[in-house]
């Protein structure tokens, strides 16, 4: 294969490449959001048990899934930066962290708003909800550690180590919380076990894809700013058209 993949690992070529890709991600995300919301609100039928409130699912489930997924991706990038000493992957990790934290927050917020009509309380110590809260703490720890260190290289390496330790801990935390929950509550309130209507599934997957593309677009814009901030002393940055004009 003659393609040189490492060419895109250099910040200068990556910067140009993602500059071209961002609009595609952004627009397809927007269109999918519209389609997903349309199916979710107008096509999908009212749930027998939960009424209209179940429609919160179409935003709650994608943000929950993505908040965990983004943490793993972030830890993966951070580990890559730590092991192979590639600057770009560390920058990707720090670009993903704020978005991940916001997704975790949204997941908690929508979870609470769904829980109130269904369980009668804004917050229950359900295993998934508690784990999500811990995940938010892990994100905040990552961001806080990075913000506290002035030298960007040390910040990258230290937070990478934290992210790796965190991702090893996430399953342990999840299972311990789950176990604790079953011990203390005996029977937790569970969502109806009935299979979802096809339109509900379609709406959820479309929204998941839309959120995913949104995450990619936003974190790519953020990583472009980070590249500019970190590489400000290099020639290629000073020669960029948006800087020279």
């Amino acid at each position, binding site marked *: 294969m003659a393609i040189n993949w490492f060419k895109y690992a250099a910040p200068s070529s990556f910067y140009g490449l993602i500059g071209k890709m961002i609009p595609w991600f952004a627009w397809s995300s927007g269109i999918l959001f519209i389609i997903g919301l349309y199916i979710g609100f107008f096509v999908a039928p009212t749930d027998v048990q939960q009424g209209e409130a179940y429609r919160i699912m179409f935003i709650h489930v994608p943000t929950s899934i993505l908040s965990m997924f983004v943490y793993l991706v972030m830890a993966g990038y951070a580990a890559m930066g730590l092991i192979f000493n590639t600057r770009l992957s560390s920058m990707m990790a720090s670009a993903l962290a704020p978005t991940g934290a916001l997704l975790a927050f949204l997941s908690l917020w929508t979870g609470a708003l769904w829980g109130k009509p269904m369980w009668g309380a804004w917050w229950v110590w359900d295993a998934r909800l508690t784990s999500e809260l811990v995940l938010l703490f892990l994100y905040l720890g990552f961001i806080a550690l990075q913000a506290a260190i*002035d*030298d*960007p*290289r040390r910040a990258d390496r230290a937070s990478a180590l934290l992210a790796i330790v965190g991702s090893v801990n996430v399953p342990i935390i999840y299972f311990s919380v789950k176990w604790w929950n079953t011990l203390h509550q005996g029977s937790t309130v569970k969502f109806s076990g009935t299979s979802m209507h096809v339109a509900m599934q379609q709406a959820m997957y479309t929204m998941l894809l839309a959120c995913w593309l949104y995450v990619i677009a936003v974190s790519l814009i953020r990583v472009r700013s980070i590249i500019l901030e*970190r590489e*400000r*002393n290099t020639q290629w940055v000073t020669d960029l058209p948006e800087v020279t004009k």
Partner: protein
Amino acid sequence: MLEISNLACSRGDHLLFSELSFTLAAGELLQVEGVNGSGKTSLLRTLCGFMMPAAGEIRWRNQNIRELDEAYYAEMIYLGHLNAIKDELNAVENLRINAGLAGCAVEEKKIIAALRRMGLRGRETLPVKVLSQGQRRRVALARLLFSNAPLWILDEPLTALDVSAVGLMQELIGEHLAHQGMVIYTTHQPLEVAGITTRRLSLS
């Protein structure tokens, strides 16, 4: 033998120096010179493996120090700006622990002899807290006396030392070089060792 080839060092996003190459053979004394902020301390810290070089490599006995790791540390001794002595302990305790960390157990007699040679007679068992700056530096320097590491890396060894202590340091370095040792150091004071021509490396 210590070989440095094409070494570059950066602090934050600021490049301190690059393309630095030199070798240090047995019996040689190398003084690193340069204005404040030119990267003297960073160079020494890189030689210790604390900092990763931005480019280039450091070889000890023809092997990269990253690969040698702990085997390299057994053959070098580093003395930084900070004395690495504990206020709560006395000089003997400090040195025994320091020698232990450097990988060897030393008899109490030898430690006391070393302290006396450094001009600290009568202060061996006082808490370091009550010693003056110069005396603390002498305690730190006493480590050199019972180390058998061939490579000495000294960052400003003469700070806070009086004339007699500077003379003593020159003597110590002379002895070390005569035993096929090597010394690399930074200083703002002149340091002359009889019979040895000091090589100079200037960072700009």
